[in-house]
């Protein structure tokens, strides 16, 4: 409980509890089995209120990335340049994250990624970050 980001809310608590435990968890509907992200109190697909937190593979593919040279906030200035990415999870949802243990010159869209956990800019609680899986590109673009 105490290793969660200060901004966690009741609707997102399950997500951040997963991160604190080193596991990526997404909301899944008990009635229609749809995954959803970001979390909310109801299933956006069938409007059911019966949702569970389920661990996911943590695997995805690189949908896009940028190397950020200008920090949006003064407290992030020491972190530049950093890699901001969109990751399309195997289960479907898109996540924004940072890429770690790599550099921009190695990256190609479609590369296979996996989640790791760390806290680049937060006082409390790990964030889900991503790194290259085996350093190889998956099929497709």
């Amino acid at each position, binding site marked *: 409980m105490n290793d969660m980001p200060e901004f966690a809310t009741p609707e997102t608590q399950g997500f951040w509890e997963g991160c604190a435990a080193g596991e990526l968890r997404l909301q899944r509907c008990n009635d229609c089995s749809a995954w959803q*992200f970001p979390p909310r109190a109801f299933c956006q697909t069938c409007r059911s209120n019966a949702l569970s937190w389920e661990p996911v593979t943590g695997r995805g593919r690189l949908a896009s990335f*940028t190397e950020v040279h*200008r920090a*949006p906030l*003064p407290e992030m200035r020491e972190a530049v340049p950093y890699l901001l990415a969109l990751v399309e999870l195997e289960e479907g949802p898109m996540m924004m994250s940072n890429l770690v243990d790599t550099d*921009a010159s190695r990256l190609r869209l479609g590369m296979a990624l996996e989640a790791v956990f760390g806290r680049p800019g937060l006082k409390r609680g790990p*964030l889900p970050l991503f790194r290259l899986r085996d350093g190889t590109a998956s099929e497709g673009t």
Partner: protein
Amino acid sequence: MKARAIIAGVGDTAVGKLEGSSCLALHAEAAAAAVADAGLESKDIDGVLCAYSMTMPHLMLASVFSEHFGITPSFSLAVQAGGATAAIMVMQAAALVEAGLCRNVLVVCGDNRLTGLSRDGAVAALAQVGHPQFEQPFGFSVPAAYALVARAYMAETGATPEHLAAIAVTARRHAGRHPKAQMRAPITIDDVLDSRPIATPLRLLDCCLVSDGGAALVVGRSDMARDLPRRAISVLGTGQMNTHEHLVAAPSLSEFGCKASAAQAFGRAGIGPGDIDVAEIYDSFTVTLLVELESIGFFARGEAGPAALEGALDLGGTLPCNTHGGLLSFGHSGAAGGLFHVVEAVRQLRGDAAERQVPNAELAFVHGDGGILSAHCSLVLGRV
């Protein structure tokens, strides 16, 4: 017969670094200019649409403005949809007039973003459009989000940094013909490619300006057109589409709501992209304009960049676009940034655009986009 909506008057302030300017003073100056341009007095205004301010955030900006300006409108509303706001305000004003709820609706925006907030302050404030838990903690910024769109767009279409740069160079060339533009010195493709990286592949000159400034217009009824001091401009078609706010929730990284928004506006006007003489399209970043030009149907997928390199968007090109210089070179002071596009379209259609005039411009297309290609609004304007 049902009244049609016209734009009866337009006004704008100086743009750029305006020491001593304020949100309300810029509103009032632009509003007074637009009311006078329409040949009206402030007491004739019965509807007011305001947007939002970053330097003077307020729960009731439209009420604050009306009190400050000294009017008591029977309809008043503030609109918040980022870069789509100005076009949405015109769409809403036209709907109010056509529904018979108002006779003369004042649309007014202004903010002293540059002197009141600084570029750092503006970047930080704008980052709020990122999701507070699932985007912002990773260092989200608006330029970074558009950079993510740019990377995906370039991978899909083969567009190059030179294609993006051509948009910035064209905007600057247009701005050089506008005496009020904030940045008028010509730039080259190499200047853009050599400017410092902000969020790759976007560089400084791929990004819009931060400015102080204000703009306003009056939407009235077509039956007043013959009494106007200036040529009235018809609102022929309007459209809107809203698909998401946060980029992680966008239905696609290559198709955005501009397509449906523009199709709706063209459909209501009974024309198509090929009929447009001049376009004023939201250009928060070079990539924004490329994506929109193609989605809206002015160019096939991947062809807007090469066309821009060949001068298609310049005066004399197949689609003169952002003839005032756009957000990239004319100026960007919040919601007024989008309203500058509308004001320029009106001046083009009136034949008042001096050395930047598109000859015989009869039909104009205006588009605004808010968030990360999230909220879209399109307008088709024409000579009465």
